[in-house]
């Protein structure tokens, strides 16, 4: 029982990060129908920039803010320079563009910074907290709490503010949104910036636990993509549930079966879900228009 709780804690921590990455996928997908495979690089950038700013003597909170802002700017640049010029391109081309962008970002990071593993101190120390016979790191609480805060914040943004509703309208029907006077180009810019900022925020939260180097983004992008798919692409609630579920599945497999195959089980479950529910757990039912 203690072991189960312990695995659950680590699963929720990792799952919260997956959920944030999946949320980033969802926001961009809704605004532009693009699956942004560079999403994992935003997490990496958040961690890396914070590390180097912190090492240069910037206080940690300020370093984190700088990292999030810089990453958001990179997200906006990605949209302006690579996604908007390719508007209307087939899915394969868009996949290659965003994967290309992720390789580009990785290559640039490796040049600007380095290839080493880095970390910065945890926000509230490294002493584990004992809960019912299991232990949890204070930083894990930060990660889980941070993810929940982002979700609540986004929910308020999407349902209570005019800009948030404009984003939803654009996701629903771009042309109709334009007709009622919504600047959909700006909504896309906003979505990329927001999504990059959320990714960077996840990177800031998780780096003290998992460390960061220039190449951590690929795995995160794949897991986040899988989590978003598991939940149903384009649904924020699906992203949250998919991410947490994926994290817990991995942790349980690593604990009870084999740590080498923890990722395998995640993908097997995703395949199984897609076979039964081809649009994910919370995906909308659609019919093909001829």
């Amino acid at each position, binding site marked *: 029982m203690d072991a189960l709780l312990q695995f659950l804690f680590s699963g929720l921590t990792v799952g919260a990060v997956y959920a944030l990455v999946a949320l980033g996928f969802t926001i961009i997908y809704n605004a532009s129908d693009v699956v942004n495979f560079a999403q994992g690089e935003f997490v990496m950038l958040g961690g890396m920039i914070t590390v180097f700013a912190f090492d240069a003597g910037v206080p940690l909170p300020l370093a984190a803010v700088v990292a999030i802002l810089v990453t958001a700017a990179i997200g906006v640049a990605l949209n302006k320079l690579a996604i908007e010029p390719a508007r209307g391109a087939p899915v394969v081309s868009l996949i290659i563009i965003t994967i290309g962008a992720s390789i580009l970002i990785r290559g640039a990071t490796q040049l600007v910074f380095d290839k080493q593993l880095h970390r910065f101190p945890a926000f509230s120390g490294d002493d584990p907290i004992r809960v019912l016979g299991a232990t949890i790191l204070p930083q894990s609480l930060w990660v889980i709490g941070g993810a929940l805060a982002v979700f609540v914040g986004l929910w308020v943004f999407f349902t209570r503010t005019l800009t948030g509703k404009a984003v939803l309208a654009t996701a629903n029907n771009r042309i109709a949104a334009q007709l009622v006077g919504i600047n959909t180009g700006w909504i896309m810019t906003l979505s990329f910036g927001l999504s990059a900022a959320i990714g960077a925020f996840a990177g800031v939260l998780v780096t003290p636990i998992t460390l960061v180097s220039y190449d951590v983004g690929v795995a995160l992008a794949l897991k986040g993509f899988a989590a978003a798919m598991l939940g149903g692409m384009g649904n924020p609630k699906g992203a949250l549930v998919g991410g947490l579920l994926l994290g817990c599945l991995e942790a349980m497999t690593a604990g009870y079966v084999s740590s080498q195959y923890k990722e*395998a089980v995640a993908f097997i479950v995703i395949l199984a879900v897609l076979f039964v529910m081809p649009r994910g757990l919370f995906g909308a039912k659609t019919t093909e228009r001829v």
Partner: protein
Amino acid sequence: MMAGRGKWISLAVLALLIGLLPLVFPSGYYFRVGALIFVNALSVIGLVILIGYAGQISLGHAGFAGIGAYACALAPEHLGLHPLLSLVLGAGISAAMAALIGKPILRLKGYYLAVATLGFGILVSMILTNERALTGGPDGMNVADPGLRSLLRDMGWRLSGGEFWYGISGLVLLVGAWLALNLFDSPSGRAMRALHGSEVAAATVGVDVARQKLRAFVISAVYASVAGSLLALQNGYITPDVAGFLHSVEMVTMAVLGGVGSVLGATLGAAILTLLPQVLTVFAEYEQLVLGLVMVLVMIFLPQGLLPSIARRLKGRDA
């Protein structure tokens, strides 16, 4: 649009290139690079059938290349099979796997299909990486020499390893290209291209959509598998990277870079992306940067791929 004549022109161009390029090779190293290009082009032609003809996506085809490669590494050692028969065995396993997983997977569309195939590829590469006892784990394993070169030597034909594999891969590529071009104009190929345009429309004129998709998937898996086998045989060594996600991405990029509907374009894309790292070894640090930049720029400015874009420009000038 692509009549019988176009097919023979494509094949002739390909054969001439393969046959004449060695005349200008300054060193034996170029044969190695050439052989690598042909192997990559072969697997990319498989993707031309899947993506270009049938309009389906796969981000996991390196998984089939991995199956082909490790079949050639494992079967001679454990089953006592000749390496060439191992290649056939690998292709058979790949085809069976493709048929098995293709049936449920190919109901999915777009990004959902992408994640399902991606999952398959990752599973294969994970097994190859983790089953150390069998595959040697991430360090890879040696592949036995098929002994064909010494056979030729006994017949009085002395070839270097590079020259030999250049010839073999070139021949296999030609056969692969010929088959793919034949498929293009066959009833099956027409059905695939019809469902690419619209599945509903294709179904209403009597195309068995699921069956044709599966056929394209299985054929492309066999191409990838044979390419993987050839790669293992000519390198004499194989690591799980051959089945990795990045290799899958590389294959799709090659296909789309050259022009995903065309066999010659696939070869061109394979050539460019195989040569790029060789050229960039001088600037090893910038390799990723340049590769990423090339991928993004080509997709933005030449969304149809290099060859069709060039062809269109030439035609435009004629008119």
